[in-house]
């Protein structure tokens, strides 16, 4: 962690690596994130309808779905999916480099492996995660609107009408702040486990699984801690 912070200047001096990782880890994850977002929104709408039916007016379903998506479902589900895709792939990639001596080769050339391999990945994931979550939130909201208006026959006004009344920018900001920390933690875990991989192909496999499991745990624990701090 200390070395990553000390060598974080590499984001600027080696920005081509940072942009490459933004594309590889972030933009390439977009289709998956959008699918997750759409179905998260669809399920939220459907469940919201089921829970409110007969108890509360359907006018509240829009704000309830919006809050659930922006504060919790969007950031957490997106981060969990990204942990599976990105944290595990970082661990596998760096782990494979470690066991084939590529990291030793880099170090022997007086190139810091932290600066060259870890910093761009961590910076890219920390930067891209809030962007991915924002897009997932938007698609999720559209998914919920689609299910509620097209399948469950609510009117557009019933869904959208009260959302402005319950819209607080702080909620959106809080969700994106969570995403920032989820991106930071899952990419750091991927790098840390990747750099410590030993034992050939079996070790790489184990590192991949470990990175995924620890990233998911970190996301859930951080989610709770941030919820306590933010709300």
């Amino acid at each position, binding site marked *: 962690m200390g070395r990553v912070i000390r060598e974080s200047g590499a984001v600027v001096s080696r920005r081509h690596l940072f942009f490459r990782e933004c594309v590889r880890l972030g933009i390439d994850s977009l289709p998956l994130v959008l699918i997750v977002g759409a179905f998260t929104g669809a399920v939220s709408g459907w469940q919201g309808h089921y829970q409110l039916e007969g108890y509360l007016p359907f006018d509240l379903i829009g704000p309830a779905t919006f809050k659930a998506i922006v504060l919790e479902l969007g950031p957490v589900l997106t981060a969990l999916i990204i942990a599976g895709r990105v944290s595990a792939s970082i661990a596998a990639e760096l782990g494979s480099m470690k066991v084939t001596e590529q990291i030793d080769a880099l170090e022997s*050339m007086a190139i810091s492996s932290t600066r060259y391999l870890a910093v761009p990945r961590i910076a890219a994931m920390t930067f891209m995660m809030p962007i991915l979550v924002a897009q997932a939130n938007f698609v999720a909201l559209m998914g919920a609107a689609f299910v509620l208006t097209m399948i469950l026959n609510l009117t557009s006004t019933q869904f959208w009408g009260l959302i402005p009344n319950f819209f607080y920018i702080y909620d959106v900001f809080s969700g994106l702040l969570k995403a920032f920390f989820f991106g930071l933690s899952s990419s750091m875990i991927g790098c840390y486990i990747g750099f410590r991989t030993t034992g050939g192909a079996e070790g790489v496999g184990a590192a991949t699984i470990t990175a995924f499991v620890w990233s998911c745990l970190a996301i859930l624990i951080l989610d709770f801690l941030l919820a306590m701090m933010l709300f």
Partner: protein
Amino acid sequence: MIEVSNLHKDFGLKQVLRGVDLKINTGESLTIIGQSGCGKSVLLKHLVGLLEPDKGTVFVDGEAITGAPRKQVYQIRKKFGVLFQSAALFDSMTVEENVGLGLFEHTAMTPGERAKRVADCLEMVSLNGTQKLKPAELSGGMKKRVGLARAIALNPQYILYDEPTTGLDPITADSINDLIIHLNEELHVTTIVVTHDMVSAFKISDRIVMLHLGTVIFSGTPSETKSTSVEMVRRFIEGEAEDKSVVTHY
């Protein structure tokens, strides 16, 4: 000159190096031999600061690389070129990017100058024209040559070779030996080779040292090595197992 003094290294309960003392003179071609697992590669990694010893020191041109701050370690490492056992080429990069990475990171060369230097290095290992290939498209011998081109790109003072001929057919292995001799003479570098290939050791070395049970048990010229009475060295050269009953048992 590299000086290794009382180097100790354990991995868990396994004592790998138990007090290695070794001097490597400038311009010398030194080969370190020893049985598999005796710590040859571990010793090599200590020379370039990739491993920290439990005890002892490695001096490179009078500067201690062991225990030095990272910045100083990186400065010292710039004097080295290392060819790893598996060549350790970066899979995601082309041959040109592999060879040019050090130049990109440590010099202010323009892309054109870099391309010229990469071509020169590849020419030295007879692989010019392979710039756009990926490591997966290369044979084992070609990978070692590209690894060597990468090792010499920054004009190092010391070139370290970890098992340069392992896994290669005898003819390709011999061409790598010729290349090591050629680079040693042409670039006037200090060459340190770790191997258990005695054909290679006799061909390329000015001096051969043997590592056994974590210490240096023999040091001599190739002709002294051939005529030594040190039993372990003699058996190693002749490829004799310690206990013949082990062979008959199987």
